[in-house]
């Protein structure tokens, strides 16, 4: 997790764009895809996103390594939609309770592509954006309260530590005779105990970190920023790109006649 969040080796063009511009672009694309269930808008957006891969320093290999749970989830979602949705059109396959028709297959593939098209921009953003830079942009450009933004950023660093702590506490408890074997009840009891141990450690760590931050003058009304979050011409292109992908998805679906809002019943 920590490794996935570091970008030290990434020199791609999009790493130099302002995180806020990237964030807005991703938001636009996601918004459009959330509005309609159809195959055309999803595949248009997906094609546009795939074209951005090299600009974000992402390869298909890296994508699979980092995003495989999302990709498998999208595929499973598509599969279950295909076999469970009401049949319409020619039946392609009928094995017992599983029946796949043209209509359900279309819906299933549309569901899968949409899932991917929504997940990909977030992966793109993560792979070319440093959390510290994102926090700088949110506080300086979006004018979110700096106490909240920096507090979250510092807490995020502790999350990685907590993952290590969880492992250590698990071992320490095994050394006391609390195993992860046994009946489901015993297991959930052991899990609860381990969670409590982690919670105690998390609170201790968090309060010590809070003292550290306060002792360094954090919490005042004003502060200066060592790193200025700036916009450049690149950010205009980033916004335009996001807008273009979103608009292309809508227009393509309108042109193909497949666009329909999620909250309208099918067939309207």
């Amino acid at each position, binding site marked *: 997790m920590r490794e996935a969040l570091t970008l030290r080796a990434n020199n791609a063009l999009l790493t130099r764009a302002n995180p806020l511009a990237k964030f807005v672009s991703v938001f636009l694309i996601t918004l459009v895809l959330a509005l309609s269930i159809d195959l055309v808008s999803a595949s248009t957006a997906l094609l546009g996103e795939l074209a951005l891969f090299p600009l974000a320093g992402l390869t298909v290999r890296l994508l699979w390594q980092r995003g495989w749970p999302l990709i498998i989830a999208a595929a499973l979602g598509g599969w279950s939609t295909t076999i469970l949705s009401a049949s319409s059109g020619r039946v392609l396959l009928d094995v017992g309770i599983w029946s796949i028709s043209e209509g359900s297959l279309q819906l299933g593939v549309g569901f899968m592509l949409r899932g991917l098209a929504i997940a990909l921009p977030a992966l793109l953003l993560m792979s070319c954006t440093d959390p510290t830079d994102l926090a700088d942009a949110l506080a300086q450009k979006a004018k979110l309260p700096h106490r909240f933004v920096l507090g979250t950023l510092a807490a995020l660093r502790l999350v990685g530590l907590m993952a290590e702590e969880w492992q250590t506490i698990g071992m320490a408890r095994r*050394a006391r005779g609390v195993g992860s074997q046994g009946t489901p009840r015993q297991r959930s009891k052991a899990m609860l105990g381990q969670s409590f141990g982690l919670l105690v450690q998390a609170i201790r760590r968090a309060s010590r970190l809070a003292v550290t931050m306060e*002792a360094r003058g954090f919490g005042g009304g004003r502060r200066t920023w060592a790193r200025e979050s700036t916009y450049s011409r690149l950010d205009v292109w980033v916004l335009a790109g996001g807008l273009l992908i979103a608009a292309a998805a809508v227009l393509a679906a309108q042109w193909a006649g497949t666009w329909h809002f999620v909250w309208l019943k099918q067939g309207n």
Partner: protein
Amino acid sequence: MPGPEAGATEVRPAAISAQGWGWRHSGRASQAIHALDLNIRPGERVLLLGPSGAGKSTLLHALAGVLGEEGDDADETGSLLVDGISPRAQRGRAGLMQQDPETQVVLSRLGDDVAFGAENLCVPRDEIWKRVHEALDDVGLRSTAGGGLALDHPTSALSGGQKQRLALAGILAMRPGLILLDEPTANLDPAGVLEVRDAVGRCLDKTGATLVVVEHRVSVWKDLVDRIVVLQPGSSSSTGGSTPAVLLDGDPDTVLAQARDMLIRAGVWVPGYVPATRPRSGPAGGSGPARRRELLLATHDLAVSRDRPRRRGFKTIPPVPVQAGLDAEVFAGQALTITGPNGAGKSTFALTLAGLLAPVSGTVTAAVGLSDGAGDDPFKWKAQQLISRIGTVFQEPEHQFVTGRVLDELMFGPKHLGHGEDRVDELLERLRLGHLVEANPYTLSGGEKRRLSVATVLAAHPRVLVLDEPTFGQDANTWAELASFLSELLDAGTSVVSVTHDREFSSVLGGTEMRLEPALQGRDRLEAGAA
């Protein structure tokens, strides 16, 4: 908020004045510190000593202005002023470093973390970066002579000593007149201790700032300070000023000469004093005759790592081992000491040996005398099979607490095993925990927690005892008790495997030493390059 000096580069050393000062934390019946009268001149360097419970940390927090407000059930008496003003009213006048290196780092990039304090004090941007470069140079984290670290170096890849030096740089960038160190080296290995001590010395020589440091290990700081103040626990909250907080005050040599016996009794590590311990005896001590030795546990060509195999899509990638090719043997009644610098994988090896981590490759094999029908791979044993065979004491006692009462904590193992409850009373008495049976384990002092964690593991009567840095941060009294107790166990036939930096400790236990050197790869190479 920023004073008129916010942009100035000169450090103005701070003066401290306490008059009848006392503080009671909210929810506590008595004061943490009571009737403190103390004046510290600008530029003085003071080492604060005293038994735990004397309020040393409370005083440092108050001077840093982070003690919270009076009111919400906390009480303040008398006055405590820095340069004649309340510490809370002047952020950035004092810089505070605490014990746990992990919580001294705020941001994930080296340069950003140093800049954090200066940003909060509204220092202009150009000035901030000037200070960042200077501070990193001063603490030796950006040595230009090769191996320097970049400003975007990830802070998570630093060693404990480097993290504490980074914290010092963050403090220096605020240009404080007062530097407060709360056991800054308690969690560090000997090399890290010297690293931090020397960096502090250099920075004080340069800036002339006032220093107040709390530490048990006097010899580390003795030559750097020009005054030692010994505090004692206050009496009560109601009676005013019966026992003053300051017991002794003066130049280091005088105080150490005057109070030597008292400090030793209080568990302070006085220079040139090694606490008396019970010597090893019996045939198993030292390198006894080979024919009598019973092998309990052995490793063969073992490679170890804390990471689990990772899934990358459909592939499973085994972790990169931190150490490989390890062969070791553990005999009944013999000590095995694992030594080596930080990052060499000592703890990882010990935890794998103890059946808590899966080997990356190679084997850990328990002899029949130890396994007793449970199979020869300790990692495959059930938790309850494990505790009656190999007991492991972790570095952080709190990680091992599973109940809310000292007595339950000790009874936990025997109860689950169905035998050995009779041993608990003996352990309670032997490790001086008898008066604490009803207490909550989390509320004990550091030394009590350590003794309890050893007792709980021994209650299950394991034949092999594995300890990870058992003497870290311990006062001299707990140290001596622990060493004597373990030497007794050894003579009784238990084998003791310990990961330690502590030479005195390993010489009390005797036996064999296994030294691990860091495999030069990845993170370790970074550390070696920066050192």
